[in-house]
């Protein structure tokens, strides 16, 4: 019963935690945009970039997939001050987590691009489209659709990564939960359960939205090879 009393007490902190969670959502938005744009670019360079640019893209991907997220956060937060530049916690976290996600997203997009039959590019070029136009009007619209399931997976993963940003003193939900713990150690368990509930909700609604998107953009005959449209 003691535990439920604590949960009730943390409940009084709930408005504060929820307000802090909007910072997580803002960070999520920023990192997804950065990750999507850079991820697309890196995937395109890996597939179409030729030797030099392709290699650069692979090294980029390797670096951002290999270095732990926490280390990236510290590097982006403390790194610039070495050169006398101030960087806000939000920008540092957006860049660190966004570029990290771009490495993972590039994998998803590259797979999707390579799953498109070569005849699609060939037909576009035969019409007189430049390579760039063909990519823009034929390859990417198909690749993004194919990428939605893999991208949903990445989404679920980076939603949770936003809590790591407390280490660069971003005022997001985890930082507040930790403040509660530091003041009232007996409330630690209850406050982290609150955080967990918030993320259960975020992940659930995010995946619901992505599911809607997948249905909305579904086109007959366009699917990853081997995928079956019928449920067995």
């Amino acid at each position, binding site marked *: 019963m003691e535990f439920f009393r604590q949960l009730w007490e943390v409940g009084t902190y709930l408005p504060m935690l929820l307000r802090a969670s909007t910072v997580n959502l803002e960070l999520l938005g920023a990192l997804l945009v950065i990750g999507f744009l850079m991820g697309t670019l890196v995937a395109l360079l890996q597939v179409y970039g030729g030797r030099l640019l392709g290699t650069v893209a692979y090294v980029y991907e390797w670096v951002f997939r290999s270095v732990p997220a926490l280390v990236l956060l510290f590097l982006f937060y403390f790194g610039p001050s070495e050169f006398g530049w101030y960087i806000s916690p939000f920008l540092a976290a957006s860049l660190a987590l966004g570029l990290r996600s771009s490495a993972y997203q590039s994998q998803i997009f590259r797979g999707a691009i390579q799953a498109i*039959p070569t*005849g*699609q590019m*060939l*037909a*576009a*070029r*035969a*019409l*007189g*489209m*430049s390579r760039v*136009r063909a990519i823009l*009007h*034929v390859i990417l*619209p*198909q690749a993004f*659709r194919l990428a939605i399931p893999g991208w949903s997976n990445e989404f679920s993963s980076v939603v949770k990564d936003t809590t790591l940003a407390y280490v660069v003193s971003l005022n997001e939900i985890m930082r507040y939960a930790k403040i509660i713990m530091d003041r009232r150690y007996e409330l630690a368990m209850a406050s982290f359960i609150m955080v967990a509930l918030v993320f259960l909700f975020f992940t659930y609604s995010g995946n619901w939205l992505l599911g809607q998107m997948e249905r909305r953009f579904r*086109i*007959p*005959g*366009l699917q990853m090879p081997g995928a079956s449209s019928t449920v067995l």
Partner: protein
Amino acid sequence: MNALLVVEDVHKRYGKEEVLKGVSFQLEKGETKVIIGPSGTGKSTLLRCINRLTEPDRGRVWLDGVEVTSPKTNINSIRAQIGFVFQDFNLFTHLTALENVRLGPMRVLGMKKTDATELAREELARVGLADKANAYPAELSGGQQQRVSIARALAMNPKLILFDEPTSALDPELIGEVLEVMIQLAKEGMTMVVVTHEMGFARSVADEIIFMEKGVIVEQGPPAQLFSSPKHPRTAEFLRKITELYGGEG
């Protein structure tokens, strides 16, 4: 140079294998040439060398007096003038039939969307698919897909259309509807080069037949002459085999 298309001494090699060993032919405006020959003799490669979807190693190609093979030529503007119909259609999977047909006029010729849409409807009607405008490729039969891809080529108002075995991927009962469209085009005076195994089509539509084998043109001539009295024994041999395989009129 009078001919619409001039192909001169085109060579292409893949690794050790020389697929094209110096092929030359010409095509007048409004003419239909049919290229026949055994599989793997470079017929498709030859077609792709004409609009440089495959880069020829040697030789030259002219379209309407412009050298296609010159490095100074803008190949995209050349390709916009040459329709290409693929064996496996290659319709854009994410676009409806109508969107497939209007994409080129919009994105290559810079046509306005309303004009391109109207044009696309006309071209779809021309291949008998006005009622399928909003269907996606996966919702169409092979024959319908190939007709959409012909409409896609026509919408560019090309000087010439290249057909790369347009009926080879089709079920036999669907071949006729595609051939009908092509016969109609030939009658309307469209300039065409057709690689095919459909001997009935070749006999009735071609102004000239080109028989290719092992990367060279063995013999060429009007269908009546080539089918009834081939000069080269290899041509006779091929015609005999293909007749056994596909039946008399194909």
